[in-house]
């Protein structure tokens, strides 16, 4: 697990072509590495954009209108979950609770959480990272 975290922290995802090396390092079969990587939602098997926007889908955020927010974000970015914007800047991911439920709806851009979000703030956030 620490090895996989290190790889993903470094390059953003776990490329399938490094499975054999991981398998060797951990004394597992390639199939087992595949099973491991796919079991954990956190690990990604495809390249991601420069920034990752995670939108909370869990109950507390639903109670504050996250469903509409999700739809608006998808429309605004022109992508669905697990996709990256055409300019390669932002990858959109779903997440189930960020521990920010006192200030729902919440999103996370890279390592930073944002609370009580609306589309105006999302737009600002996205343009900040896209131009920055």
């Amino acid at each position, binding site marked *: 697990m620490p090895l996989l975290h290190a790889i993903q922290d470094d390059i953003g995802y776990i490329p399938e072509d490094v499975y054999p090396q991981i398998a060797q390092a951990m004394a597992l079969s390639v199939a087992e590495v595949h099973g*491991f990587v796919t079991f954990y939602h956190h690990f990604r098997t495809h390249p991601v954009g420069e920034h990752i926007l995670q939108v909370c889908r869990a*109950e507390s955020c639903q109670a*504050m209108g996250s469903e509409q927010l999700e739809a608006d974000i998808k429309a605004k970015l022109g992508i669905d979950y697990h996709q990256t914007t055409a300019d390669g800047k932002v990858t959109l991911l779903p997440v189930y609770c960020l521990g920010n*439920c006192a200030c729902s709806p919440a999103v996370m851009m890279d390592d930073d959480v944002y609370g009580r979000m609306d589309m105006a703030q999302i737009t600002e956030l996205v343009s900040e990272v896209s131009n920055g």
Partner: protein
Amino acid sequence: MVKVFVPRDSTALSLGADKTAKAIQLEAEKRGIAIQLIRNGSRGLFWVEPMVEVETAQGRVAYAPVKPKDVASLFDADFLNGANHALYLGLTNEIPYLKNQQRLTFARAGVTDPVSLEDYVAHDGYKGLKNALTMTQEDIIKTVTESGLRGRGGAAFPTGIKWNTVLGASGEQKYIVCNADEGDSGTYSDRMVMEDDPFVLIEGMTIAGIAVGATQGYIYLRSEYPHALHVLNEAIAKATLAGYLGDDVCGSGQRFYLEVRRAAGAYVCGEETSLLESLEGKRGLVRFKPPLPAIEGLFGKPTVVNNVISLATIPIILDKGAQYYADYGMGRSRGTLPIQLAGNIKQGGLVELAFGVTLRELLYDYGGGSASGRPIRAVQVGGPLGAYLPESQFDTPMDYEAFQNLWAVLGHGGIVAFDDTVNMAKMARYAFEFCSVESCGKCTPCRIGAVRGVEVMDKIATGKDHAKNIQVLRDLSDTMLNGSLCALGGMTPYPVISALNHFGEDFGLDKGLNEKESVV
């Protein structure tokens, strides 16, 4: 030099606390005023974050919520001397939301700089460990047992009894594992402990290690909490350097080492045996019990698995004694519960109170009603596997047994409020969807049942073969309830059936009849 406090808790940050801190620093420099800016933890009054405090001769005073645009006017108003201002809240300790709480586990949260060991010790830190080091292992455990502390991770199992099993288990190597996977929506108290007062968790784990004879501890931390990771690592490094962790804990000759391990976003890994599999570097498949982790846990060794709040409550029990803690609470629910108000609530935040406070008091006296201003129609208590409660049950006291009697759970103490725009059939569908996304796949009732559940809910929504589909829903829930290996599959029926029983009109049932429907 005047001390100014701006929280570094991630919810405060999520509302712009960093920008506020920076603006205060810049404004002070601009005016040539020397201040000491301390990044404290949060008091948990999240509805008014970022909350800025200033130390005055009378005590700390609060201003909130402070945005960068407010900073110049605060300086103009002489907030550094505690002067009045539109955002002035008075003495922090006199704010009713805080004053009326009974903060035991969270005594220091927001008061101290989370990564200052000096601050921790100056605020009663490490007194519990000092006491524990003068006691026998049996006496430490007896104290924990007599305090009445029950696991705060959800299952409410008595902590002292668990520890006693580990103490009695034979084995050279034993482990303390802290469950910091906090996956429940509506909960954030574990995160707060780790970000706002990490030493209390470190101290609690050290006491646990000494009590059961374990020399190694792991904190299994949710990957969604990057801030907590940094704070914990910094605190562990400081505690190690100061001799509170390591080869010779406080000169006692006892060893205890601590490490943080990052999880990887699987809800089921909060289940203790799945967590242990994951810590061992495997897929987080739930294990059959027995053997209990206390006998054969991590790498097959006797292991204490406890929630963050359970462990963070140990220091005050060892400091003040079992009776002090047990004097709070009601019935078999002793002590305090850090309750987390979330969802559609006006004043969301952490409310630590003795067991016995009612949902209604929490939702209205503390929460101030819904954020939208509409009536609160339902609350889900205890995370995604907890039941939905209707208004008619709001007078229920927070007590494990009182909730059990209603076919509900307290879980980790999270309360998510929904206003009257919620569609409860949709929430039931979501419960199945969540279960299907997160199922570890080991047993059929959960793996297949969750997928079937989503399908049935979709059929119910069409209104065709309605009575038949409602019966299918009940039967399916019954199968999951009785046939699942762990509570993910086994408790998904709680939100589903409680929604059906209390809010049948959202499922296309005739009102009136629902309340009489039998509970599974």
